[in-house]
């Protein structure tokens, strides 16, 4: 059982916001990913299915739709560089290159030492402070390529 008692208690409270419990599924999957290893494992899917009274195939179908959910293990620190138009116009590809160099990971993959997962993502809503990247959920904006090494280097 991957779902801890603490998580279930959280979900119990979360689901009271909605007239139908299933609406708590996506917020719950976020919490699972945060607490249970940084990804949505098969065990997490079957546990959530049981909790929400759904079939695993239904939970899997939902989880696999959303770009923020990882259905296979990823490196410890997720680095997401925006590749959309406003960022691209202001040098996003250099940011991606710098991130590739520093992490040693190819886009869409984790570094060999497991520290980083690097991905290119679509518009993150920081267009006027482009280019940007998200590291462990935190926005880093108005980047120069040199900032990348500094920011990633500060991660313990």
């Amino acid at each position, binding site marked *: 059982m991957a779902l801890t008692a603490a998580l279930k208690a959280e979900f119990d409270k979360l689901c009271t916001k909605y007239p139908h419990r299933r609406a708590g599924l996506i917020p719950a999957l976020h919490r699972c990913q945060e607490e249970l290893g940084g990804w949505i494992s098969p065990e997490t899917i079957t546990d959530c299915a049981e909790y929400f009274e*759904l079939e695993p195939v*239904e939970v*899997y179908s939902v989880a696999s739709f959303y770009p923020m959910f990882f259905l296979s293990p990823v490196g410890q620190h997720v680095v997401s560089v925006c590749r959309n138009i406003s960022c691209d116009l202001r040098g996003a590809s250099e940011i991606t290159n710098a991130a590739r160099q520093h992490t040693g990971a190819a886009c869409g993959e984790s570094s060999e030492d497991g520290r980083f997962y690097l991905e290119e993502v679509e518009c993150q809503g920081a267009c006027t402070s482009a280019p940007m990247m998200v590291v462990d959920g935190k926005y880093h904006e108005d980047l120069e390529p040199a900032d990348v090494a500094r920011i990633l280097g500060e991660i313990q």
Partner: protein
Amino acid sequence: MTKIIVNGREVEADPQKPLIAACHDHGEHVPHYCYHPGLSVVGSCRICQVEVKQGEMPARVVAACRTPVAEGMVVNTESQGAHDSRRECLEFLLKNHPLDCPICDKAGECTLQDYSFQEAQAEGRTSEPRRTLEKRKDLGDVILLDQERCILCSRCVRFMDEVPKSPQLCISGRGSDSVVETWQDAPLTGNYQGNLADVCPVGALTLKDFRFQARVWNLTRVPSTCSECSRGCSISVEVLRDGEVKRMRPRPNEDVNGYWMCDHGRFSEGELNRSDRMGPAAMRNDAGELNQADPDDALRVVRNLLSIQSNALFLASPYLTLEEGEALSQLARSCSTQAAFFSPAANDLGDDVLHTGDPCPNRRGLQDAGLKPMDSEAWAAASASADCVILVGERLLDMLGEEALDGLPSAQRLVVMECRTSNHPAVDVALGVPNRVERSGTWINVDGTAGAIRAARSAPQGVRTIVDLLANLTSASSQPEEALSS
């Protein structure tokens, strides 16, 4: 009912159903993939385009499955705009669809093929590589999935959710990365999987049982009724060149089975193709050999038997039709007795979808015909004391079990009218009969609804119908004839 005009004709439309249903109900063709009258409506495939004009509003091309009917609506299913939209939609679908027709079981009954021809979408303009996905994904005992052929209409997902109410299929991923799959490639379970091959508009979900078995245009399709339980689903029996039954599929019948049938019934055709078929007649001689005989001679012997026996037991197979049951009842009465039909025990396949759990397809019909049900126990008791036993109809020997004949008194005479041969020493006279795809008649289902079975192919050479055989025995049974020297 709402009055609308479709292609110039005023028709009545059910306001509870979408426009596409009204068009189909009145014989107007509207192409469709994701729409299915037995499933929820999604409106995603976008091919059911028709032109609609309402009042003073300009005509627009809409998806017919998501358009409610409205009084006075003017519908044109053949407008240029509708055809253009459909052709565009087809080009998009054909962009990634593999050119598998030469090896695809669905060829000949594939609506992607059909609509492509109808809409003259002969050539696609794509030069891009097609998506490569799993082409022979094993989904268990019944279904094979080819993800490349899939057009993501979601009928299969909705079928599992809505009919057997057992969600097992899903669309995973998003956009052009979407695929149909099960959770962790688990095999499908349940008694309704075969319907997936029916609802799939293309050759993405196919039956393992039918894979590479026949080209569908070589199949003769005959409407009939399923035999495997008392639901009596309406089916079509499909025979290859007057030979093997290659498959059975459900026929729509809103009073009985909707659009579906169960796997237990669907995959029962194997028994119909067995090679150990009884010829027209056989009789046991003094040396104890069961030799081929002329049916008229055999009938004469049986008539003699009946005229001299005082305690005859007539047992019908549960697959006998209403007409055959009546003929047998009459024969039995003329022998001062009541005929019975073998009543198989209930099985555990009964569910709240279609299967009744009662393997007898004509229980009500046979009871209406005056036959009394007789289970294994009752048969054991009655057969022990009868001096003459007449078994009538297909699969009866299998259902009784040949061991059931072991304990019969040696003085007893046993006449078997069956489909399959039997070498059991107790058999004195054997007459071949047609099975349920080789004859016509009526079965009455659990709700009292009549279902017809119809011959889809010829019975083996020389085999006579049950009604003929029984009538022959009845007409002369009052008059003993000289016994043939045996």
